């Protein structure tokens, strides 16, 4: 069964872990032992039963009532495999949120309908990040409708505010589903709630099913192999890598950049066996007619008619976790490359979607940055080649953000 990965998004305490916990219970997925363990802990802490404890397994998470780190659980719903990625909603834990969300193709954003909660900066920030990381379909679940007496006005007001924000950041509104729910009381999760007759849409799980089933499939394109390294065993020197798009046949003339080598792929090994052909998604070991000089890690192999161009200049959009002032290093396709220059053109306040000037505080905001790299790398626009168009950003040893390539 193929697994569809969905990340949860939203401000802290808006119910991400509770929602997944209750989905596990409502769909009959959670084991009795995990439910009992969550019940026992809730009792011990003198609280109402908290379904979120099925996921929040650390003592510190349960006692503090927060998710510290990301986790994943799977649900089989009508023969579709879903993997829900829970993430922390606290802004200081955003690197853990990004670690989880980066593996997802879909998202559920939770917004609390409780009067003192509502849309928070983190609500919109997570939406911005999701869009940036390539999540094109999203369910906006307006949660805690029980606290809002199931009133339609509360739902409508949140919906219209989020819709405005989606438009501002260029997210296709037709790819967003809006559902009023209560994660704790299970309204509109798996069964339609009788308490909101004004809502004519589908349940959360049905919406997920629809989102997954109507998603377009990716197609094989031009050949791109990202080189991982060399095999440490064997008499021959084999170059390892992952086919990220296209196919390669043994005997094919290919080029390796930035080294600008033209070679013939003599043998192709896939999963330990010699093959005539390797396809997208496969890890290969290749022998060439010439032995490459030095390490090729991070190089890109392409075929005739679809050249990949190495460059030192990259136009990018970077989300920063702090207001970085020191030189940065980017990690892209296994390369670690220092930036000689990172020129900020402007900053986008991710809590509002507004464009600010270059001097605006970059902490938890995104910036359009012109990068000048200390060595050549193959970078392609994220919109056309996700795997060659994304990178993570470090300041010394500290993780400070992630970026996507706008142009190179």
């Amino acid at each position, binding site marked *: *069964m*193929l*697994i569809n990965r969905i990340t949860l998004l939203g401000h802290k305490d808006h119910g991400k872990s509770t929602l997944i916990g209750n989905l596990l219970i409502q769909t009959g997925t959670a*084991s*009795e*032992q*995990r439910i009992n*363990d969550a019940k*026992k*802990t809730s009792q011990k802490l003198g609280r109402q039963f908290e379904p979120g404890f*099925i*996921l929040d*397994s*650390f*003592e*510190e998470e349960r006692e503090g009532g927060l998710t*510290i*780190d*990301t*986790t*994943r*659980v*799977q*649900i*089989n719903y009508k023969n579709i*495999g879903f993997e829900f990625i829970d993430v922390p909603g606290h802004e200081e834990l955003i*690197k*853990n949120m*990004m*670690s989880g969300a*980066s*593996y997802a193709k879909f998202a559920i954003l939770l917004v609390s309908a409780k009067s003192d909660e509502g849309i928070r900066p983190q609500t919109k920030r997570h939406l911005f990040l999701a869009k940036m990381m390539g999540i094109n379909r999203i369910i906006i679940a307006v949660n805690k409708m029980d606290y809002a007496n199931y009133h339609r006005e509360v739902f409508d007001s949140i919906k219209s505010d989020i819709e405005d924000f989606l438009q501002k950041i260029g997210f296709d509104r037709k790819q967003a589903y809006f559902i009023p729910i209560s994660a704790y009381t299970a309204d509109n999760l798996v069964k339609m709630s009788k308490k909101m007759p004004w809502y004519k849409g589908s349940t959360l799980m049905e919406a997920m099913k629809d989102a997954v089933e109507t998603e377009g499939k990716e197609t094989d394109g031009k050949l791109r192999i990202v080189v*991982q*390294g060399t*095999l*440490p*065993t*064997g008499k021959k020197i*084999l170059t*390892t890598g*992952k086919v990220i798009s296209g196919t390669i046949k043994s005997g094919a003339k290919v080029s390796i950049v930035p080294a600008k080598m033209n070679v013939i792929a003599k043998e192709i*090994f896939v*999963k*330990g066996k010699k093959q005539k052909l390797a396809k997208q*998604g*496969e*890890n290969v*070991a290749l022998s060439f007619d010439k032995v490459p000089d030095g390490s090729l*890690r991070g190089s890109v192999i392409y075929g005739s008619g679809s050249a990949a161009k190495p460059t030192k200049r990259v136009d990018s959009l970077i989300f920063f976790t702090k207001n970085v002032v020191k030189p940065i290093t980017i*990690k892209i396709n296994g390369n670690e490359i220092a930036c000689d220059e990172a020129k900020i053109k402007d900053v986008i306040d991710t809590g509002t979607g507004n464009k600010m000037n270059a001097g605006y505080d970059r902490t938890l905001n995104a910036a359009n940055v012109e990068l000048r790299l200390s060595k050549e790398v193959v970078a392609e626009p994220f919109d056309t080649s996700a*795997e060659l168009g*994304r*990178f*993570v950003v*470090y300041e010394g*040893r500290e*993780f400070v953000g*992630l970026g996507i390539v706008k142009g190179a």
Partner: protein
Amino acid sequence: MIQQDLKELEERSIYIIREATTKFDNVAALWSMGKDSTTMIALARKAFLGKVPFPVIHIDNGVDFPETYKFRQELAKKWKLNLIVAESEIKPEMSGFACCGENKTVALKKVMKDHGFDALIVSIRRDEHGIRAKERYMSPRDKEFKWDFKNQPAEIWDDYSSKLDAKGHVRIHPLLDWNEVDIWGYIKKEKIPINPLYYSRNGLRYRSLGCTHCTVPIKSKAKTIDDIIKELVVTKVEERSGREQDKEKIYVMEKLRALGYM
């Protein structure tokens, strides 16, 4: 339990195993002779065209099952494994937390230090336990083997950024995405040799294998891999329900892992 696409799982594991040997100088793997670490070695054989390029470590407390020792000997020979047996002393009064936490961890620390390993491949899976589900694919441990679970490194897209701390090491988890039933699906597909204790005898089988002191079998009629897969697809019982160490306290796995347990 969901049966996932084995090809996708296999590719990801091969990528991670190769990444481990690319990023680190001195890699070793833990081999308990259980289904998971044996599957991991089968994957490493694929990644490296038949030859496993790193040593495999058995933390041996001397009280594993006879079948396990026999299996170790036979497979190490057949697959030409570089086997390191790290002996850990077991005292009669020890069990559960004390045994797995102290005993095995002390032996592991010693063998890691003696050989200077900087990375250790461990075949844990996310679906085994709520705490294991919080792990990264590559996870640093400090020189005391402690897991700083409150401050794990970012692991975004396929960038496993773990950097080594002085005298510490990095745990590599190539099987993190696999479910228990996937392991069995793969064992069947690849005809991977497996410890006979997993199959039902007299109505009982071991679902998770530890040592003779702390592991109890479950009721099961599953005598073949197909039976086991059928059993797992519908089960609502946790895999490690036969492990004493997990039952003592709610957070015992968190404590064990923080202290350096596998």
